[in-house]
């Protein structure tokens, strides 16, 4: 399985970084092809709602930054793992900045899917989505549920589904075994 991990932890010294590193190594050990993007190390200028990626440079963000790296890594994967600590009840602004710049992956045209208006697909295939949360003492079960609900909607708009989610409170090896069964 090809897996891309979007690491939304901005703090280089956080235990969540070490956890993700261990998880990545476990997955590689199981024979999976893993691309781990440390978003804090990338130049992501953020989406400004210009829609150039739909109407000027279709399929690509017109900003000269690393968002193309994120989009390519996402589309090269069978499973896209969104990994982030919880801050103020949701995943980090850093992870959201990367997600905002994934808009070029869909097409502006409207379609009706599941009784709702959504955007048309741009690609024949999209990765499954997974969500790994570092829940601190400030987060409760309701925060996790709300966070899941928002990312599940994003996955749906990205022509996919949120196939797995978990809190990073178990051994990385155990989580790796579970993830390997998802895709």
């Amino acid at each position, binding site marked *: 399985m090809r897996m891309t991990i979007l690491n939304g932890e901005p703090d280089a010294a956080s235990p969540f970084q070490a956890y993700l590193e261990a998880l990545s190594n476990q997955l590689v050990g199981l024979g999976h092809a893993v691309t781990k993007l440390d978003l804090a190390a990338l130049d992501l200028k953020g989406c400004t*709602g210009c829609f150039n990626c739909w109407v000027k440079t279709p399929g690509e963000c017109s900003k000269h930054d690393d968002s193309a790296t994120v989009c390519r890594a996402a*589309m090269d994967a069978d499973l896209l793992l969104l990994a982030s600590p919880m801050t103020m009840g949701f995943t980090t602004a850093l992870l959201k900045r990367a997600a905002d710049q994934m808009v070029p992956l869909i097409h502006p045209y409207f379609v009706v899917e599941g009784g709702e208006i959504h955007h048309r697909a741009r690609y024949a295939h999209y990765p499954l989505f997974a969500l790994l949360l570092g829940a601190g003492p400030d987060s409760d079960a309701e925060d996790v549920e709300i966070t899941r609900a928002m990312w599940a909607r994003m996955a749906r708009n990205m022509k996919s589904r949120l196939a797995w989610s978990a809190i990073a409170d178990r051994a990385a090896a155990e989580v790796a075994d579970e993830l390997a069964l998802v895709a």
Partner: protein
Amino acid sequence: MNSLLLLNGSPRGERSSSMKMLQRVAEGWVRGGGAQPEVLHLVRHAQFERAVEAFAGAGVVLLGTPLYTDAMPALVKAYIEALAPRVEAARAGGVNPTLAFLVQGGFPEAAHSRPLERYLEKLVTRLGSHYAGTIVRGNGEALQAMPEQANRKLWARLQVLGEQLARDGRFGAAELKAVAGIERFSRFGALIASLACKIPAIQFYWNGMMKRNGAWAQRFAAPYGPPFEE
């Protein structure tokens, strides 16, 4: 006279659909007896900093945000993260302002914005604030394409919500429902919408921009994988 800190969380700044709507709420707020609000655009760095600094001292904070990939844009989340010390302050007995929100999404149905609304309501609890409600509205992008006059009903309703906020300290449920418009399509409504989406003219907004930009021939470009085919 109560003070209002009006925060525009749209990365588009002053020209955004969020700001067009917030402006009408602000007009109603003043009409309802509130003081002239301080307006800050979070996309401007100095104003972002000012918004963090001014939060604790405001009577009411109205934060407007577009829906980006089904949640708040990163800019708004960064602002919320900057408010983390106010959670600690509230736990220590400090007082945070009353919070009101405006969420506008591009799709017509309000249902797309409800998970974010739920998050914002929980944020109010986290900050120990009083919750004044969330204005949810779909079809926000249409505000960019339509003449101001075409939205008279919406502007009037947003003004009423602003008046209610100034007078009652919260938005009225009936007016929130009226502004939200379509919550979800019925089966019949979804069928009609599905047929409408197949009419090329319905995509005129995008097609016009693609043609003006010379991008029409590349509109189905798929640089990262095999393209979707109908």
